């Protein structure tokens, strides 16, 4: 599943200043050399945790290539993320064992509950949802990493449990049955 909609949240004023300052320092280090586009993007992501659109525009302007080219590179490589990481990072394992034991169902449950597609962050930046290839504990499949803590043998009910544990409000049982929790 690909992120289809526009990222909704715009960075705030003071955030913009930080972005510009950090991007500037990285650009200086690589002398705005277009051949160093990937190291520049890596440097910016290391500083900011993600690649904001404003940063990509600034980079494109500095190294003098079309901004869509920067966007193309940013979306090509898995290592780059275009959404800010959430306060709580949820990583659903999609390795072979987890895939066979229903990793997809777990991912679907998170997507439905958080109302975001895989790879995105909730508008309040509380949660970000990602897939990972293998966590290294296949006997516990399906596995979810919640802020680097391993959750073993996860079931959709445990997904609700995890989110409840972070104080997220879930639709009541009646609604759940009627609307599959999509309402509200």
């Amino acid at each position: 599943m690909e992120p289809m909609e526009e990222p909704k949240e715009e960075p705030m004023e003071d955030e913009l200043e930080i972005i510009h300052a950090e991007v500037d320092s990285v650009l200086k280090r690589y002398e705005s050399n277009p051949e160093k586009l990937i190291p520049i993007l890596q440097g910016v992501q290391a500083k900011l945790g993600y690649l904001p659109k404003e940063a990509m525009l600034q980079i494109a302007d500095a190294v003098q290539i079309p901004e869509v080219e920067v966007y193309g590179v940013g979306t090509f490589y898995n290592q780059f993320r275009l959404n800010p990481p959430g306060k709580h990072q949820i990583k659903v394992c999609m390795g072979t064992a987890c895939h066979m034991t229903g990793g997809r169902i777990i991912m679907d449950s998170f997507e439905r509950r958080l109302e975001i597609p895989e790879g995105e962050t909730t508008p309040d930046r509380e949660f970000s949802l990602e897939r990972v290839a293998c966590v290294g504990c296949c006997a516990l499949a399906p596995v979810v990493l919640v802020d680097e803590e391993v959750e073993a043998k996860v079931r959709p009910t445990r997904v609700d449990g995890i989110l409840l544990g972070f104080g997220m409000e879930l639709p009541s049982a009646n609604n759940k049955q009627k609307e599959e929790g999509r309402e509200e």
Partner: protein
Amino acid sequence: MSGIVTVIIDEKQITVPEGANLLRAALDNGVYIPHLCANEETEKPAASCRLCFVEIDGFLNPVTACTQQVKEGMVVRTRSRRIDRLVQTAFELLLSNHRLGCAKCARNGSCELQKIAKERGLKLKLTRLKSVVQETPIDDSPETFVYDASRCVLCGQCIWVDRHRVKVGAIGFIRRGMSRKVATFGETGFAKSRCTQCGECVKVCPVGALIPKAQG
């Protein structure tokens, strides 16, 4: 004299400038080779459409004509069992990710895929592969044209003219693999991008992905 070489393509002797592009040389001399990603001006085509395979004497395997330079005495064949199989597969792969339904397509009759199918006796439907066309929203934000990503064959012609002929830099390839597509920065749609709506990309689109808006 150096500068002019003689090559044989399908038993037809042709003389072309040395170092010319083989695909170009064939097309200019009336030998049709299917192609999507190369145009008259690309010096280094992406060779991504995988349709212009030819056999050249001295080469073990078929090669893409668009990446070859002509050499004196080159003997080229554009049809053989091996070539036809490669082209057939490449063509069906393209079709598997291209929304069919020619009757409803504005490019019906002038479509490059239809031309290739006719030239090579290929079917315009899937026989071995499943269709993986994704339902994508049609971008009708520009005033003069419409972009339908589900009909795009990722040849890159539109991106080439955007960068090299009109030098705007509004569109490019994004993502990877099955999710690859032509889009503007941030996937905002054409109207919100730096696109000048010059319409050059619409002219070079070989299929029905970029089509002029119907008048009225």
